[in-house]
């Protein structure tokens, strides 16, 4: 999550509501590496999506997710733990900055590892996994370039996570015990949906 970064992506805002004719250009920090034509390729198949507070955007354990560019609203990311409990991993505010969730699902085969739920009304643009896979099988450069971007995000997170794990092990060994809360917090900071 939060794979946004330093990217400008101009999106023509679709008609969210019936009768609404106004179209606005939104500037989103995403996809700067694509040419204008490649951005349009994605946008042709991208779908507008809106969620009311409480609605699930990505569901843990189900199919690999689509990628969502969150344009406005707030979301919560939660992870199920054993014993029926769950844990809040992150809160994201797209009103401050458009953000991306679900990018791992485009590349991976596994189901989503956490649930993303709207905490207020959320407007998003969905790049469906099926669309992305089709673009890959057609050999379209835009899709391969997006995977480069996602791979870099994943590699950076994995590297940080590996370092955290080593640090945690060293702590455990040094003190013979550890501050469990701090340990858990460190492990979940690098979560990806």
């Amino acid at each position: 999550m939060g794979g946004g970064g330093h990217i400008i992506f101009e999106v023509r805002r679709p008609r969210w509501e019936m009768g609404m004719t106004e179209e606005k250009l939104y500037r989103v920090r995403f996809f700067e590496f694509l040419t204008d034509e490649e951005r349009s390729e994605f946008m042709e198949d991208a779908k507008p999506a809106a969620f009311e507070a409480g609605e699930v955007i990505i569901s843990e354990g189900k199919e690999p997710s689509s990628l969502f560019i969150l344009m406005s609203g707030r979301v919560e990311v939660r992870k199920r733990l054993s014993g029926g409990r769950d844990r809040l991993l992150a809160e994201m505010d797209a009103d401050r900055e458009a953000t991306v969730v679900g990018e791992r699902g485009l590349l991976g085969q596994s189901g989503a590892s956490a649930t993303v739920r709207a905490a207020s009304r959320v407007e998003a643009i969905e790049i469906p996994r099926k669309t992305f896979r089709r673009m890959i099988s057609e050999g379209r450069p835009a899709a391969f370039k997006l995977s480069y971007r996602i791979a870099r995000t994943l590699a950076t997170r994995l590297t940080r996570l590996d370092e955290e794990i080593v640090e945690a092990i060293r702590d455990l060994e040094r003190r013979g015990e550890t501050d469990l809360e701090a340990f858990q917090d460190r492990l979940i900071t690098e979560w990806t949906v």
Partner: protein
Amino acid sequence: MPSTPSLDGIPLFERLSPDERDELAEIMSPASFAAGASIYEEGGPEETLYVVTSGAVEVHKKILPGRGHHLAAIQAPAVIGEMGLLTEPRAAASVTARTPVEAQGIARDQFLEMLDEDSLAACKVIYEIGRTLAERMARTDESIAGIISQLERRNARGGHDPDVFGDRLLNEWGF
């Protein structure tokens, strides 16, 4: 004229057309390592990505002073050094040849240059690497969730066994 390395049967190159394979072959150079030879040194440079075409390598990391921890054994065909390509060119662990190893080296700089120039061949290789990273991330997430659950259960009972966590964390390592 150097012979073109065969990239057949290596999953990383499956999506590449013959022309794209030739394009990549141009920046590859053959490398061999004797059994026991060091390929990457933990903390040292990781400027070359290797496509291991035969043999096996071992991955070690210094976790605690004076003790190297064995993380993984990797059998050809495989790619090593891909994290250095996507992040900093610094090896997170040591990799040594377990048997005689034949490989094709790809210089990080040259590969990144191809990516900058939007080479589709290079992007396709990255796509395959990205797929393996996505699965590795999924496994890491699940194991961390398991560890957190375990910690919370033990915490609720008022005690814990640090060694178990250390072992479990290491077992789940995905290099």
